[in-house]
């Protein structure tokens, strides 16, 4: 069935055998592609094709998951990767399905639009010869006169388009149904375009900001940055943002102890170099809106403030270091690299906001807030590997060229520091002190100019869909007979009240005019 045919009653299944010649074949292929059946099958294929993306980790949503998958399945993973199962939604086969679907859709709605324009301007079709063949029909005995005039007035008042043809009245209503359907399908094309174009111009950057630090919006300030295909650096509007304070609140009630209640990043922002300073709060569901950017709060944690001195008492490291939370009670892991000394060394440190010792001797954190904070350190001496020019992950320490000098199996106990304490580092490396505690916020800076358009088209499509599914389109005919009159109606599409309509029209036409 061709998509042009909207009502089942109208589909005289003319099976056209493929015409001859190249042109004929092209026409035939086009007809196949734009047929409802093809659209239906492509829709179902799209549904099936989307499934593997929820089974295998996807690079776009879960890059770590992909890495882990490769580690766990070293032989299978490359095979899956070769058929793009880790990039399902940008894969060639997934794209092929939806592109075909949209070509089919365009090929379908364009001619439908033309037909609908014609229908909007033409009169309702003439009354059928035999009313009883219609799905709803009634014959009424009545002696009242002026039937045609009264029927015309009645149906017009009910929003029908009416024409009179001798003794018969033809009426049609519900053109909005088809209009809604076309709006719906065109809006889907709008959604697709807005997603594609907007995605191309978008960017997404991440930055960890410790209390007191300032972020200035330029490429160099991001910890990681993912631009869309058409991104230009000029899209980054210069603004600065300082994290004044980060507040976290956790539940203390026994049944929900330690559950997060609220996170607030209190920031001050400034547009350009000499803009006015403004204070605001960023919360999880309340991003900060800046020009060409929205700033989201995506994570948080502790940043212990430490000072490290060499054996001569010179400061070789000082400041707050962001530790990544490893558990819901914020046991956190941090790495400190001290390159500028006679002998390079690094520290792998754990932070426990509310420390407790398990029976095994291992430490743990009981509660996410810093009630009894403790810092423990394992120290590694040797080459930090920073001179190779390869950028290093600041949250990881490559210990392959290092020897452990404190903690673990080194024979020297790991260091344990409470807030305000200091300790001697092993092997005469100097001293370390735990001077203070700050918090950090992980911020995401995102920009997607297409999002608003996606929303506009999505809402339009919802409106079109609702109209096309709920507005009944029907034709009603009234004709004088020898004993009275008859009424018939035909629905185009689903119409739950067709019979009721016929009865109501008949009743209205038999009742005396209320004067």
């Amino acid at each position, binding site marked *: *069935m061709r998509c042009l045919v*909207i009502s*089942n009653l109208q*589909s005289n*299944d003319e099976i056209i055998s493929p015409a001859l010649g190249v042109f004929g074949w092209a026409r035939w292929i086009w007809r196949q592609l734009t047929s*409802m*059946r093809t*659209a*239906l099958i492509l*829709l*179902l294929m*799209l*549904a099936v094709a*989307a*499934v593997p*993306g*929820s*089974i295998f*980790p*996807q690079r*776009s*949503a*879960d890059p770590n*998951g992909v890495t882990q998958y490769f580690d766990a399945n070293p032989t299978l993973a490359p095979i899956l990767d070769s058929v793009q199962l880790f990039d*399902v*939604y940008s894969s060639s086969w997934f794209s092929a399905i939806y592109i075909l679907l949209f070509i089919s859709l365009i090929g379908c709605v364009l001619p439908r639009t033309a037909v609908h324009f014609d229908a909007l301007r033409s009169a309702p079709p003439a009354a059928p010869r035999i009313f009883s063949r219609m799905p709803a029909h009634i014959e009424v005995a009545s002696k009242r006169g002026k039937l045609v005039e009264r029927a015309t007035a009645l149906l017009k008042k009910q929003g029908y388009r009416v024409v009179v043809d001798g003794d018969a009245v033809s009426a049609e209503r519900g053109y909005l149904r088809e209009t809604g359907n076309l709006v719906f399908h065109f809006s889907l094309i709008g959604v697709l375009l807005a*997603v594609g174009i907007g995605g191309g111009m978008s960017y*997404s950057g991440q930055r960890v900001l410790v209390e007191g630090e300032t972020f200035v919006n330029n490429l160099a300030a991001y910890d990681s940055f993912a631009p869309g295909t058409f991104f230009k650096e000029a899209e980054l509007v210069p603004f600065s943002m300082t994290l004044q304070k980060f507040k976290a*609140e956790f*539940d203390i*009630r026994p*049944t*929900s102890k330690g*559950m*997060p*209640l*609220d*996170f607030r990043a209190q920031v001050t922002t400034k547009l350009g170099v000499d803009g006015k300073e403004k204070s605001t709060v960023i*919360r*999880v*569901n*309340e*991003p900060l809106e800046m020009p060409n950017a*929205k700033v*989201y709060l995506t994570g948080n944690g502790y940043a212990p403030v430490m000072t490290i001195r060499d054996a001569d008492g010179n400061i070789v490291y000082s400041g707050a270091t962001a530790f990544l939370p490893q558990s819901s009670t914020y046991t956190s892991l941090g790495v400190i690299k001290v390159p500028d000394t006679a002998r390079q060394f690094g520290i792998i440190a754990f932070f426990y906001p509310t420390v407790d010792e398990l029976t095994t001797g291992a430490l743990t954190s009981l509660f996410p807030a810093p009630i009894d904070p403790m810092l423990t350190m394992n120290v590694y001496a040797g080459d930090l590997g920073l001179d190779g020019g390869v950028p290093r992950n600041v949250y990881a320490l490559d210990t392959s060229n290092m020897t452990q000098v404190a903690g673990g199996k080194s024979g020297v106990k790991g260091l344990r520091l409470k807030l305000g304490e200091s300790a001697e580092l092993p092997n005469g490396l100097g001293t370390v002190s735990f001077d203070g505690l700050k918090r950090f916020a992980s911020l*995401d800076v*995102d920009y*997607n100019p297409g*999002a608003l358009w*996606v*929303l506009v088209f*999505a809402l339009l*499509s*919802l409106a079109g*869909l*609702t109209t096309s*599914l*709920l507005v009944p389109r029907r034709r009603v005919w009234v004709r004088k007979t020898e004993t009275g009159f008859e009424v018939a109606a035909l629905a185009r599409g*689903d119409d*739950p009240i067709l019979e009721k309509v016929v009865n109501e029209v008949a009743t209205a036409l038999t009742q005396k005019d209320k004067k």
Partner: protein
Amino acid sequence: MTPVALNDSLSQISLLFIYGAMLVYTVSFLSFSWQLTRLSSDKKKIRAGASQLERVGITLLIMADVLHGVGVILRGIAASRVPWANMYEFSITGSFIVVTIFLIALKIRDIRLIAAFVSGFNLLILGVATTVFYVRVAPLPPALQSYWLVIHVLVAVLATAFFNIAAALSIAYIFKTAKWVENSKLKLVGAMRRILGLFPNEEKLERLAYRFNIIGFILWTFTLIAGAIWAERAWHRYWGWDTKEVWTFIIWTIYAGYLHANATRGWTGKRSAWLAVVGFVAILFNFTVVNLFFKGLHVYSGLK
């Protein structure tokens, strides 16, 4: 934000109401089943007593629904928020809405014979909810502190309820039109045939299912859009092919296929009925397997 008042003892009372509702649902389900067995009898006298059982079943269903509703509302009061922030709450609220819609629809539509399905399925959902999904009242994590929780989830619950009733009608349609049901000489199937004979005719079943499905589809489209708007605030992008988003999309596409099938020659009737059932199975899958076993951002079951 000051910590909200959580009332653990009130949530215990809520649970008691849910248990009470389950008990009454059980009796209601039994009377509907008994009604169906009587209807399937080949003796006229036995069949005649069935309508009384139906009345009893419906009265019980209303009572159970009231108890169920009180349980849902108390749960909301106990948690000081809408009662649909985790799987347990979603299940009890969703099943309450299914029964309520069904009871309202009873007045306008002749769909009484699926009552056994509705009450039985509901009992199953509540059973799983109270045993597998149950969690104590807990404060909302920051990601859920948004008015979108009210909108997005409520509409999803409603959509699910409409799809649920439509699926029941489609299943009845599939049995009614099945060749093996028609031709089988088995006694049991013969009994089933007699029950199916009492259902509205095929065309009516198909149209009823269609009407519930289109409402469900409109609501589902809204759910998807509302989810995207919320994701833009909570997860900093409106769409990211998270597992939950993927399945919402899959379900949407299946039902879009269903709507097209209804206008495609050769696909109306049985095939579209199957699509509606597949769509509903995908919804159940999305709610259970995807929530519990798939990795993603949308993990608010509250289960550890």
